[in-house]
């Protein structure tokens, strides 16, 4: 029977990274993926990733996918697409459907990196066409170029719900509301803030009561829930929508591990039914590894590192890498993984109420309850400073593992330090040239360049802008606040794009100077 040193099931971030590490050591590796395109979920991630420079931060997800694929290709990894692994049998034999037949292939090691599937919630009408997973909506928009609907309600304020809400608006949909049964926003505050300032109202402690419609969704009613998740009478709110997006978490797609006979556990900390793995990602069956979401839901950045660790472990197991060399590699990867698993959103922090940042700054309650930092809260964060002339205002208020802004400034005026989760601070001694590199580098779109007083009674605010059509210089419109409310008239005075900005445009607007610290988004006059 055909046999490989390593068979990888799933060409997502974990699978590709494992294949790359194994192939680097000389292993003969095949990667099977059931989709027509490799990259797993990376290929629909059009936003810039968080993390550290070494781990592809500020690069857009699909770009990371392309880079990994090129790297795997160069190393001689066989990536077989439209290849559905249908079974994993004893002796590490897999059956894989390719075109119109089934092949039997064996691997001396096998990595299962099958990812996750979307969770659903039930409510009357949830089976109506128009109720879809947020990930499905993202696939429709970003892979197939199809709008899921025109008017959307998003349920779920985790990163998926927030990111997809933003992307829905980028694609031209109207997001009428974002609801979550939890009392606090679950995802990164910066993701929430960029959705809120576009004018999307957040309804925390709200759940969907029912979807209306006969043969498709025509509306949705949400209502507020109390501490016991019971709906409070009289709090019902109706929205006319044609689409309800559910972003209520992911579940590991671990059935292949279960079929193979790996010891499994149902672990809420890993968001579901997962194979029990050791620190190298090895399951209870020696030589069978699991990495990425299949072994516990996390971010793509951690999936990549888990994949690398498993690839290295397989190489050590099969004698392609000495134990010493392997240990050195593990140490490196583990340090990186630990870095990513720090901060307010670390796996160990799930469900814990946080009151202050690592720096001791009281966190923004408004951000958690309404999706944006309130005006009276914003001044206390270290990235928010004032001075004469143009300068960065960094509205980054939570400890997340991300630091590209630190390296973005050619004058090194932004400091995070060695702890990747620290809040960025602005060095008052260094002058700002207004180049905008920091604005474009921030994956959370949380950095603004502000000139609070241009001398003529106006202020200028430069903001990241990722919508089309692009406003023109001189165009007049409305400045929106952090909450998405109209604050004042505004005029576009600059639109910059550069290769280094990677498709993020820098929009500079002019407003009356009293709005310098209020105006955070621009709406074109002819827009809704």
């Amino acid at each position, binding site marked *: 029977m055909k046999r490989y040193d390593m068979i990888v099931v799933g060409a997502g971030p974990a699978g590709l990274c494992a294949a790359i590490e194994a192939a680097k050591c000389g292993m003969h590796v095949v990667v099977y993926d059931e989709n027509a395109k490799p990259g797993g979920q990376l290929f629909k991630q059009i936003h810039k990733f968080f993390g550290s420079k070494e781990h592809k931060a500020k690069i857009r997800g699909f770009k990371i996918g392309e880079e990994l694929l090129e790297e795997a290709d160069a190393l001689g990894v066989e990536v077989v697409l439209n290849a*559905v692994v249908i079974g994993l049998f004893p002796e590490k034999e897999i059956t894989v459907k390719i075109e119109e*037949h*089934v092949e039997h292939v064996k691997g001396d090691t096998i990595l299962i990196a099958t990812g996750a599937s979307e969770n659903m*919630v*039930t409510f009357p009408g949830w*089976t109506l066409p128009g109720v879809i997973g947020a990930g499905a909506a993202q696939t429709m928009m970003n892979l197939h170029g199809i709008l899921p609907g025109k008017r959307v309600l998003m349920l779920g304020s985790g990163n998926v719900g927030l990111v997809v809400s933003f992307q829905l608006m980028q694609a031209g949909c109207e997001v009428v509301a974002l609801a979550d049964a939890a009392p606090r926003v679950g995802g990164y505050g910066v993701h929430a803030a960029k959705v809120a300032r576009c004018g999307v109202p957040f309804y925390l402690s709200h759940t969907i009561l029912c979807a209306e419609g006969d043969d498709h969704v025509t509306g949705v009613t949400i209502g507020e829930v109390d501490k016991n998740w019971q709906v409070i009478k009289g709090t019902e709110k109706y929205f006319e929508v044609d689409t309800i997006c559910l972003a209520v978490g992911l*579940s590991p797609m671990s059935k292949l591990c279960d079929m193979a006979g790996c010891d*499994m556990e149902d672990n809420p900390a890993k968001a579901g039914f997962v194979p029990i793995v050791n620190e190298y990602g090895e399951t209870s069956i020696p030589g069978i590894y699991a990495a990425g979401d299949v072994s516990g839901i996390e971010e793509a950045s951690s999936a990549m590192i888990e994949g690398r660790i498993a690839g290295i472990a397989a190489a050590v197991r099969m004698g392609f890498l000495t134990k010493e060399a392997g240990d050195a590699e593990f140490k490196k990867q583990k340090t990186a993984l630990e870095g990513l698993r720090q901060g307010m959103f670390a796996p160990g922090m799930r469900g814990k109420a946080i009151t202050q940042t690592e720096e001791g700054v009281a966190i923004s309650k408004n951000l958690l309850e309404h999706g944006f930092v309130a005006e009276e809260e914003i001044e206390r964060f270290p990235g928010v400073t004032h001075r004469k002339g143009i300068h960065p205002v960094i509205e980054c208020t939570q400890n997340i593992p991300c630091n590209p802004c630190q390296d973005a400034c050619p004058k090194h005026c932004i400091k995070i330090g060695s702890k990747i989760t620290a809040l960025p601070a602005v060095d008052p001694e260094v002058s700002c040239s207004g180049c905008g590199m920091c604005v474009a580098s921030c994956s959370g779109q949380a950095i603004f360049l502000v000139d609070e007083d241009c001398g003529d009674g106006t202020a200028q605010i430069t903001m990241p802008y990722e919508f089309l059509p692009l406003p023109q210089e001189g165009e007049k419109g409305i400045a929106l606040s952090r909450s998405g409310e109209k604050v004042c008239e505004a005029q576009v005075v600059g639109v910059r794009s550069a290769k280094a900005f990677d498709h993020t445009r820098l929009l500079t607007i002019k407003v009356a100077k009293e709005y310098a610290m209020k105006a955070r988004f621009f709406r074109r006059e002819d827009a809704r």
Partner: protein
Amino acid sequence: MNDRNRKIGEYIPAPDDDVIVCRCEEITKGEIRRAVHDGMFTLTEIRRYLRTGMGLCQGQTCTRLVKGIVARELGIRPNELREATGRAPMRPIEMCILAKDKEEKE
């Protein structure tokens, strides 16, 4: 040890009992709840008795939902219920394709 005669209370009809939970097999929440009171205390038994998760998607969507309903009815935590075993084929496959299996010799 799972005593099937332990008291879990009576089945009390709920307003959302007619909500479909398993879309593939069109099984409602009420059917699942009643099955628990008929003694189906494990996800595997529910599945064998009602066909939840036995349709084309093989439980990818409803497993977590069914787990929550059964756990609530039994008064236990959802993760105390073991998911039904994963089985080949992982994705539905036409008989004529599965029939064409070959071993590529190296």
